[in-house]
């Protein structure tokens, strides 16, 4: 086909429809057949989730329990009705793409998305064959229309998976750039800080400020310079750690120890309590230093979300050969419209945030072949955010 003949203004969806030759006749055939499908919508959807929930790997994408399943079932029923009724226009495409992105967000592996659509395909086609048995030409055309629209659905879903992959790549590139900057600037700042530090050392000697001697006001300011230099050095160390992307050196460690290391690194205010619900014998094979960084970042965020007051609850349980940690706070929770971006480097909702904390968490977990995510809020939770770490 001569590409020059294709008008350049065709949208992604129009090009797809053009490719599978899906047209208004197909839409009309599906609409005609809808009354037959309608009574079967609920059983088809129930069967669909039955298949996911009885499958060990596919089930992992559902973290919100029965409430989430019910919500998802209702979404799928609407999806199925719209599939048949159309109109198969741009707003249809936008809506389908949003649903696809939701599957990406809950990390449903694409192979299950594929096989799940096929389960629906089989059910719908058998309805066609059973009900249009007396009208072979119409049966054939309706079946073909169904095949085409379901292929379009798959293509849209795959496009959303591709979008997510591209966004992850951009995030990785961004982090690499930040890494180069951070390494350069970090090392450049080490030297001036080293001069300040050693000058403070010399000043203490020259002014006879050792062992509590000397003018208290001079001592106070010398101490301030020294402690602020230490703080600046710590910031540089954190940045360099992010930039280095060190592979984890795993060791079997008690889950409680990892959490406690995180608590002590977070340096939380006394008004924040960390409650642990962790089997004292539970071991995890992780880089304890890196995982402590993950938990300290989650605890610092939780503490800030709660305004420096309240309880952070950490639980852990074995899931297959991994361990699932849940960190729950009593803050306002994460707004839905930003939830999918919070792990992106340099993305922050805080006035004084750097957007490094959660992206460092994600990077550390990826290096551990684990995951970190925000759990959907369950109906009995009126507030708060729950982060789920699988490692």
């Amino acid at each position: 086909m001569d590409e020059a003949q294709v008008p350049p203004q065709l949208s992604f969806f129009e090009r797809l429809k053009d490719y599978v030759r899906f047209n208004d006749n197909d839409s009309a055939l599906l609409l005609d057949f809808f009354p037959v499908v309608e009574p079967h919508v609920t059983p088809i959807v129930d069967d669909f989730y039955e298949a996911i929930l009885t499958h060990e790997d596919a089930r992992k994408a559902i973290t919100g329990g029965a409430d989430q399943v019910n919500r998802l079932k209702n979404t799928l029923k609407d999806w199925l009705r719209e599939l048949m009724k159309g109109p198969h226009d741009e707003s249809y495409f936008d809506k389908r793409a949003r649903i696809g992105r939701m599957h990406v967000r809950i990390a449903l592996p694409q192979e299950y998305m594929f096989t799940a659509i096929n389960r629906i395909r089989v059910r719908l086609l058998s309805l066609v064959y059973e009900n249009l048995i007396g009208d072979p030409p119409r049966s054939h055309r309706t079946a073909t229309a169904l095949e085409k629209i379901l292929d379009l659905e798959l293509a849209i879903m795959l496009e959303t998976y591709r979008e997510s992959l591209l966004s992850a790549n951009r995030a990785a590139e961004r982090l690499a750039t930040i890494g180069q900057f951070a390494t350069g600037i970090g090392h450049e700042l080490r030297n001036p800080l080293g001069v300040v530090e050693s000058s403070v050392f010399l000043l203490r000697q020259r002014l006879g400020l050792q062992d509590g001697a000397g003018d208290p006001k001079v001592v106070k300011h010398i101490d301030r310079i020294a402690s602020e230099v230490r703080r600046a050095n710590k910031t540089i160390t954190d940045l360099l750690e992010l930039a280095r992307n060190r592979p984890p050196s795993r060791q079997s460690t008690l889950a409680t120890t990892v959490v406690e290391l995180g608590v002590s690194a977070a340096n939380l205010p006394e008004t924040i309590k960390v409650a642990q619900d962790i089997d004292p014998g539970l071991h995890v094979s992780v880089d304890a230093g890196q995982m402590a960084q993950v938990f300290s970042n989650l605890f610092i965020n939780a503490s800030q979300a709660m305004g420096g007051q309240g309880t952070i609850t950490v639980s852990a349980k074995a899931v297959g050969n991994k361990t699932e940690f849940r960190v729950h706070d009593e803050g306002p929770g994460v707004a839905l419209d930003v939830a999918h971006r919070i792990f992106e480097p340099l993305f922050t909702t805080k006035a004084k945030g750097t957007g490094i904390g959660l992206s460092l968490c994600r990077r550390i977990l990826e290096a551990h072949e684990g995951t970190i995510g925000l759990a959907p809020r369950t109906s009995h939770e009126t507030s708060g955010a729950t982060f789920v770490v699988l490692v």
Partner: protein
Amino acid sequence: MVPNNSHRRILVVDDHTELAENLAEILDGEGYLAAVAESAEAALARVPVDEFHALITDFRLPGKSGPELITALHQLGYGFPSLVVSAFTDPQTIAQAHEAGANAVLPKPVDIKALLAALQQVLETGADAALIKQRPAHS
């Protein structure tokens, strides 16, 4: 109390002159006689003039690096111990410094007390003993 470090000459090499001078001043305060060079090349020009008992050098220098300076000194027959300070403390950097013959590697920012302790140790135990002690177990 000033420790009995007199007559111990220490050469401090860092292209960040202020840092080298501060370190030298701190060493002088501890009773050492410290001299400053801002590059490996300047250090190599300085060693025939004065006798030194130890070297403290930055890892990264314009021209020859700290480890290259240590290798060059050894090739010229100078046997005094050396300490490398480095802003990079990844295993490769540390291994590189030890392979060149550094007796100890200290991270930047330099903890002054740790540096003074390490210096005293390499001066007292001698280069060879310190060399074995400070090397990674696998080498």
